[in-house]
Every structure is written in structure tokens, then in C-alpha cells.
């Protein structure tokens, strides 16, 4: 039997209501019908459903990421405008060992890393144990490892595994 996580259906319904800027009953019914039909139709192409626990952890993570994003935006802007102390920047690849294995968790990690200017997801080793990222202003590798493992990965493991 197909099982679609109800949270996803709710997200879809919310999206429908947002799109139509309306919370009338007609739209709720219509949105619910369309969302469930679509989810059912798309099910074969989404065989792997996420399992999520502890939503609030995710919210806290989101807040942390927002702060990091603002900080790194400023950092990258300085680099581009040549306002750094060192004048010449040093960018490069680095590797981070991961404990997170769940694809959805990894996806969220990817979103975080991508959304944070200054870091780019490069590659995940086939066994999902080693992540390569590219860092624009690579001064101290361990600092980055620390940040990603503690600030992001731990929370993600909590939610997805």
C-alpha cells in the first residue's frame, strides 16, 4: 500500500492555499483533492519517503543556519571586494567524514552547505562516509569540520536517523 507521509500532503495543501492566497473551504477541499491526487500519481517516482522525527530540532537548526548565512555573506562580500586583511585569498577543497547516512538528511545538509556562501558541496564518497566541499576562504580546516559536524550533522542525525 502506498504511504505518503501526511506532512508532505500538508505542505502541499499549505502551498496551494498560499498560492491562491485564500483559506476558503472551497480552496481547502480543492487543494486537498489536488494534492492527494498528485502525491498518489507521483508516488512511483518517489519510492523513498522521508522518515522524520523531532520537528523542533529542525526549526532550531534553521535559525542557526540563518545566522551562519548572514555571517558568511558578509565574509564572502569582503573577499570579493578585496577587503580581507590578507589581500590574497586561499581557497581549496577539503574533506569531512560524515556519520549521517540518510539520503534526506544528506539532502538537507546539502541545502545548508549550498545556501551558506563560501562553501560548496563537491562530492560525497559512494559509501556516503566522506564529504568533499570547496571553501572560498580556507584558513582552518578543522574549524569547518567542527562547524558542519556539530552544528548541522548532529541535528540532522537526530531528525532523520
Amino acid at each position, binding site marked *: 500500500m502506498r504511504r505518503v507521509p501526511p506532512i508532505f500532503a500538508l505542505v502541499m495543501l499549505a502551498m496551494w492555499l498560499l498560492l491562491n492566497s485564500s483559506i476558503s473551504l472551497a480552496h481547502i477541499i480543492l487543494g486537498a483533492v489536488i494534492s492527494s491526487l498528485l502525491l498518489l500519481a507521483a508516488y512511483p517516482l518517489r519510492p523513498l519517503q522521508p522518515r522524520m522525527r523531532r520537528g523542533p530540532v529542525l526549526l532550531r537548526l534553521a535559525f542557526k543556519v540563518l545566522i551562519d548565512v548572514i555571517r558568511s555573506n558578509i565574509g564572502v562580500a569582503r573577499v*570579493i571586494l578585496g577587503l580581507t586583511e590578507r589581500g590574497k585569498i586561499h581557497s581549496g577543497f577539503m574533506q569531512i567524514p560524515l556519520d549521517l547516512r540518510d539520503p534526506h538528511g544528506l539532502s538537507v545538509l546539502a541545502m545548508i552547505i549550498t545556501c551558506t556562501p563560501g562553501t560548496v558541496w563537491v562530492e560525497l564518497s559512494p559509501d556516503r562516509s566522506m564529504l568533499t566541499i*570547496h571553501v572560498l576562504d580556507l584558513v582552518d580546516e578543522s574549524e569547518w569540520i567542527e562547524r558542519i559536524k556539530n552544528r548541522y550533522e548532529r541535528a540532522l542525525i537526530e531528525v532523520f536517523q
Partner: protein
Amino acid sequence: MIATEFPLWATLPASLLLVIGGLLTVIGSLGLLRLPTFFARMHGPSMGNTLGTGCVLIASMILSSALLHRPVAHEFIITVFIVIVSPVTAMLVMRAARYRTRVKEERRQQGLQREQE
């Protein structure tokens, strides 16, 4: 330019957010020009992707809400999509770039070897 009158509570933060968003985006794109290697350049546009867009979207939400006299949040959907989508692009472009630089490097070295022989 704008026909509608907006209340001050909307105008001030929206203006500020717009200026910040614009500046972040243009600096990010400037990075495309100024940064020396492709991998470094990858970081520039993500400024516009994230905070720049975020600022503009929040400004838009504020203004729409002021315009329609009720909270409007559909800009949030755009944020969701951008967040979902940008890793996909970044990963694939990055991987393509890695592959291409690797191949280029290999070819260059083959060429050098051939010259030496």
C-alpha cells in the same frame, strides 16, 4: 512611479531590505568577474541566491501585505524552491567542472609527456 501609498512601517524596512539585497546580489555577481578560478567563482552567485533573494522576498512580502491589508506570504514558496533547487545545480555544475579540469589537466600532461618523448 508607485500609485499606491504604503504605510511607513512597510516602507522603511522594505527599502532597507531592498538596498541590502541589491548590494549583496551585485557583489555576488561581481565575484563572478573578480575571483580568479572557477571554483572560487562558484561562491559568488550564491550570495544573490540566498540572502539577496531572501531580502527581496521579505521586502516583497511586507509590501504585498501592506498593499492588500492582510498578511501575504506566497513569496515563501519561492524561498522553498530556491532552497531545494540550488544544491542540485551547485552539485552538478561543480562535478562537471571537476571532471573537466581533471581531463584538461590529464591532456596537458599527456601532451607534455609526448613532447618529452
